[in-house]
């Protein structure tokens, strides 16, 4: 039994829209748990139901074994970090962070030490007396983080906290969030639509789509062993082979088989380009012409027109020699363990 448990959560908006359709998750103590999915998939609705800002239509939420749904939101003792920071503009940085300690009747001296510690943890110690209005988005979100952590909540919720920040700051702050979370060892539920962010920050990821859970697992499981075609396409990129003689020939050569209506796909970084005609044992070769070459510094993408459709090959550390001209004839090497098969319902076959 998990620390936080959600069982069969269903949330209906209006007559027709089902935001959550029978969702069950369990989060352990100290775990960093991420809800990942496209907008409208229900991840924010689930988070807000745990916070208490909207109630489920049906289902159960328990925290540490006790029913959470009957507790009003302000008594749930759950810290929350918001996408738009929600920093109080009329209070100083210090007062923002101290705000949650006052209803908890913490003595003034203790407030001072705890707020100072929290501000130091988010590296805002020198700005305690400033008003937040003129501060940058990154600094405001640090205030939001300190404010949610300082009350020692039973659970920390974060609703796309980094999505309004620029790319570089996003990476920097996500590392900090991860470090602080490990230090204070608090169960955290993090909502994002950014798959790279989810992979980098999480202990476990729950991929959601259209109000349902697609897959729950560690970042390695989600990326390396996706259980549905949706997960494989949403996390990372995917080449899908066109059905036909060329594909079937390649699968035969590799000794792979699946029902007729299954689709086969492969990740670009599992492929390679080889000299014409040479196929090592346990691999197959697709011949084709280069239709696009994209150089990205630490990698390069070569789009190849093969009889089995357009296939993108990702080359790591491309040197000068890796450059391909459009129209050049190349061979795509497909290792035997690279292709993944998905049934007509989207579920993974084998794997």
């Amino acid at each position, binding site marked *: 039994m998990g620390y936080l448990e959600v069982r069969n959560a269903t949330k209906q908006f209006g007559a027709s829209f089902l935001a959550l359709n029978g969702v069950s998750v369990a989060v352990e103590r100290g775990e960093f748990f991420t809800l990942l999915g496209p907008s409208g998939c229900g991840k924010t609705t689930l988070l807000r139901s745990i*916070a*208490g*800002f909207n109630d489920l239509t049906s289902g159960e939420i328990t925290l540490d074994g006790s029913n959470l749904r009957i507790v*009003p*939101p*302000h*008594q*749930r*003792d*759950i*810290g*929350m970090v*918001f*996408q*738009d920071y*929600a920093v*109080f*503009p*009329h209070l100083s940085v210090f007062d923002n962070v101290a*705000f*949650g300690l006052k*209803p*908890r009747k913490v003595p003034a001296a203790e407030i001072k030490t705890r707020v100072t510690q929290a501000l130091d943890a988010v590296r805002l110690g020198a700005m305690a007396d400033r008003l937040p209005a003129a501060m940058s988005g990154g600094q405001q979100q640090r205030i*939001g983080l300190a*404010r*949610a952590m300082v*009350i020692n909540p039973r659970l920390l*919720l974060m609703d796309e906290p980094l999505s309004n920040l620029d790319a570089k700051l996003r990476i920097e702050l996500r590392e900090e969030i991860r470090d602080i979370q490990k230090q204070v060892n608090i169960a955290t539920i993090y909502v994002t639509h950014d798959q790279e962010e989810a992979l980098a920050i999480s202990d476990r990821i729950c991929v959601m789509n259209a109000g349902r859970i697609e897959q729950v697992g560690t970042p390695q499981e989600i990326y390396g062993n996706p259980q549905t075609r949706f997960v494989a396409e949403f996390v990372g990129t995917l080449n899908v082979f066109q059905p036909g003689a060329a594909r079937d020939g390649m699968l035969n050569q590799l000794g792979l088989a699946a029902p007729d209506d299954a689709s086969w796909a492969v990740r670009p970084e599992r492929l390679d380009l080889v000299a014409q005609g040479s196929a090592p044992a346990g691999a197959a070769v697709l011949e084709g012409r280069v239709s696009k070459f994209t150089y990205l510094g630490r990698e390069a993408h070569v789009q190849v027109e093969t009889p089995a459709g357009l296939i993108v090959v990702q080359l790591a550390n491309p040197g000068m020699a890796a450059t391909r001209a459009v129209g050049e004839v190349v061979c795509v090497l497909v290792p035997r363990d690279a292709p993944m098969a998905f049934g007509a319902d989207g579920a993974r076959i084998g794997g």
Partner: protein
Amino acid sequence: MPRFNFWTVVMILTWLLLFVLLFIPVGSVLVSSLYDQSGNLTFANYLKFLGEPRFHRAFINTLVVGFGGLFGALLLGSIMAFCVSRFVIRGGKFVSLLAILALVSPPFIGAYSWIVLFGAGGVVRGFLRDLGINMPPIYGVGGILIVFSLKFYPYVYLMVSGALSNVNRSLEEAAEGLGLTPWQRTFKISFPMVFPALTAGGLLALIHAIADFGTPRLLGRGYNVLATEAFTLYSAEVGSNMSMATTISVILILVSMVFVMLQRYMSRRNVYHGNMINKPNRIQLKGWRNVLAHVAVYLIGLCGAMPVIISVIYSFRKTNGPVFQNGFALQSYERILFNLGDVIRNSVSFSVAAVVLIVIVGTVVGVLVARRTNFNTALLDGAFMVPYVMPGIVIGIAFIAAFNTGPIVLTGTATIIILSIFIRRLPYTVRTTASSLRQISPSMEEAAISLGYSPFQAFLRITVPLIVPGIIAGGMLSFVTAINELSSSLVLYVGSTMTMPVRIYLLILDGDFGTAAALSTVLLLLSGCAVYIAFRFMGRNEQALL
């Protein structure tokens, strides 16, 4: 099934308030217009309105001054807005100040100052006659239109300059890149973007021009409009005709409503939410263009503020009775001090009482409208539009019609004046409170709730402090409107409840311009203080004055 809680009570009380202060008076006006003097149900009043040339003329005249004022205000306001927001104008802030002066200048004094300058014995006219130039006096429809244009242009100016400085520059640059000439850019890109502001400002000018009673009264010289006809019919010592006055009131309301609907219809599609990343630059003009822009802006600004300037100067002139002498003295102020203290006291205490009521009720109802969105509040929001289209004179007549007899008798009391101001200004406060609440992210209160505050505490500790500066500022601006309110008080006052604008009106009718000017200056000073406080609380924001 709605729960019976605090907000349900507020909702019921709000409807009760609207019922007593709005629906009953408006209903009384409607009912009264449908009965003749002896109490029989009849359409005779409306037939009389349709039949008598005197009313036809007043109706046509009302439309003439309405549209004349509208076009004059649009012309002057857009020229000034365009110049100030697109070109470098020295003393741009001073120009805005002149516009504010014109906006908060006490009623009547405008018309009278123009008479002082260009009337039959006008100073400027006399001076020109000495030079051999003979110009006609300012009386009649021409004079009314000049005064309206100069009095109402700030509505257009403030609306349009706000919109113009928010047009994303990239849009115009994109048009430039596509090969449009500056003129084409102005008319195809900038004009559609500011069109809603233009129509909104124009509507304000139009509605005020239709409702204005003092200017045609003083300058018209027989050029009667519906507002003056209604007042004449109501106030005639002999043969006062209440039912005909209410008939005209109903027609005035209808005319105003038609224009509000028209404006809404015209600007329904043109709502642009520009992002403010790329604000337009002001261009430094050179040579004669620069001179022309400065002359235009300052000419409009100074002419608009002229009445204020004249009345301040004349308030310090030496007088002998009502006749001005050479030199300066404080006699006019002495007369105010010794004879008119109670008028100032009345004005201030009525306005303060009205503003306190407006702020409290307006804020609570504004929260209701913003936070409890359902069918009832949408209806409420609509009901609050009604006072907006009711000219002051109509509110006054409606209150007399409703509270002269029957269960609640209020005529002759201070309460009726306070309530008439209250109901007219309440919609603005409800709207501004509701819109400022809608701008506060709901996650702000949610953050407080997640930190352990109950929803009510979260509202009190987070939302209230954030909207209080706006509420105080709005209250100050309501004070400006309240203390300058003339037309409804003119219908509702008795000797003991006379206010400053009413007194100024009577003084001007008596020909005592010195005392009127001094009283106007005091009024202006009070308004100025309120505007200053408002700007201190919310930053300099001229658009809030509208």
